């Protein structure tokens, strides 16, 4: 198991296109991946667009990305990098 914490920095948060990009990236990996809202402990599968939308993650929120599986480190690093890149905004 491998995990990292980061902060959502893009304006729209994890909604609309950024959410879709995030799920597409997560789906490339075989590991089981989750994203957690650090404030309220709500967790969702990083591969489900709907559950991620339901978390309503907006700018400034801290999230923890956790993965378990053969490519866990690569998966977490790629997703954290994507969030930190502000989704190209």
């Amino acid at each position, binding site marked *: 198991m491998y995990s990292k914490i980061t902060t959502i920095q893009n304006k729209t948060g994890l*909604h609309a296109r950024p959410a*879709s990009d995030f*799920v597409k990236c997560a*789906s490339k990996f075989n590991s089981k991946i989750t994203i957690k809202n650090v404030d309220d402990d709500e967790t*969702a*599968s990083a*591969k*489900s*667009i*709907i*559950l991620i*939308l*339901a978390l*309503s993650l907006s700018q400034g929120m801290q999230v923890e990305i956790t993965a378990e599986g053969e490519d866990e480190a690569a998966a977490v690093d790629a997703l954290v990098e994507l969030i930190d890149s502000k989704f190209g905004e």
Partner: protein
Amino acid sequence: MIYHGNPVSKGIAAGPVFLYQPFTAAVSGDLLEESAVPEALNKYEAARKNAEAELKALHARLQSADPEKAKIFTAHIDILFDEAMDGDIREQIENNRYPPDRAIAEVFEKYARILRKAPDPLIKERASDIRDVKTRLIRIWNGVPEKNLSSLPAPAVIVVHDLLPSDTATLDRKNVLAIVTEIGGSTSHSAIIARSYGIPAILGVDKATEHFSQGETVIADALTGQVISEPTKEQLRGCAEKRRRFFAQQDQINTFINKEAVSPDGVRVDIELNLASVSEQALEGEKYTDGVGLFRTEFLYLGRDSLPTEEEQFEIYRAVLTKFGGRPVTLRTLDIGGDKKLGCLNLPHEENPFLGNRALRLCFDRPDIFRTQLRAAFRASVYGNLWLMFPMVASIDDIFRAKQAVFEVKKELTDENIAFSPDVKLGIMIEIPSIALLADFAAKEVDFASIGTNDLCQYTMAVDRLNPAVNEYYQSYNPALFRLIHLAAKSFLENGKPVCVCGELGGDRLGAAVLMGLGVRKLSMNISSVAQIRKLVNELPMKKAEQIAANVLALSSAKEAEQYLNSALKEILS
């Protein structure tokens, strides 16, 4: 009978009802035999493939015409392949032996409910996308062909429980007169699409699908939110007239809102915006105007317990200046007095607040407030073209004091090494007769004037414009007012200093015609007046405006002036 709903997209139409019944998903209840599970999983997979093909085809069809709407179908494909839902559906089939249609229905509904609980209304709305994809999958499972509103036999008023996002995106626009639904709010897909297509829409009409029958004639009035069944001949005539007027108005707006305001004899008039907030809607006006002629800043102080900080003001001023690029943004310093209760500014009760310690006078009294606002404005000035103006100037001394305050703030900023634009223009509001009479002196002291016709009328006619008992004495067309404007404008124009009018007279066609004739080349108004004033300028030769203004100055009463203006401008007004 008249039924009421929420008019979310303006317009009006009468026509036959087209009751639209989309596919409704009934699912089978019997559990699967264990041996049937593998085949069920295969069929589920096949249904998904078919649904994907349909969505891709819809996407392709819309992509070139309307890429924004095509995105709906990309989102639907994302939902169709959502891993969490897919996992749950497979589990229901494999472990609980649910037939796939039941598994799809239950799992999709569960996820739609999850989204419905989201605090953000936009995310909530996505639940309807999930239900849309669910309906598609179950329809395919049942082997029923796709049904939508993409081709209607004749123009009709669509009556439906609720439109699914895919229905609205593929709508046969030319044959949809209006949309009436039983549910949905102003942020729903139906509302957004109806507005973008300019189709009148009334949502939330309770039991609409039961009230109206297929083919009956109704009036859908999305100006008032009424749906009228069994309309009388008279009501139908009224509807036709309202529809004609609505379209004429829309045409005028569409033709003129972006048309440069140049008179037939080649004189340009700047059409500027009056801004009283920085909401997204208010800033929409940026697209149609040549600048901000009046940026009221009172909203920053209203409804709060503490004064707005320099930083807070700076951010807002910067945003507006940036939005307008190089176009002028005329910021009016705080214009408030004892007539308003302010939580952040305990103002004492006054007997005559309109003649009291207000606006610039209050700012001299409270230099801390004035200084904070001036600092924020000057700091923001590097982001655009700032014009700064002072309200309630009554004397030349007021101008000196205001300029002194500006001088001090500039010095402070320079000492602190904070940048500001050297080109900020300083101006005054002309709304008190005394300064209009001394405009020749004032014009030498400042860079521009802006005439606030509402207050100028109030102070010239000695009439409280908020007191209905003296309403008849508030006469915007009184020649006395035009004479004062003439005097003030002439003084400034002779000194090569621009004159703007930002009161209601500037957005009024009769008033604007006279103002043009008096040499005013900047009119500032609410967005709702922009199209009609651009039209007026385009149709009224400046030579004629000058003649009209000269004639008005020679009249003796407001009534005469109004009659004269109505007849002189008859052709343009029609």
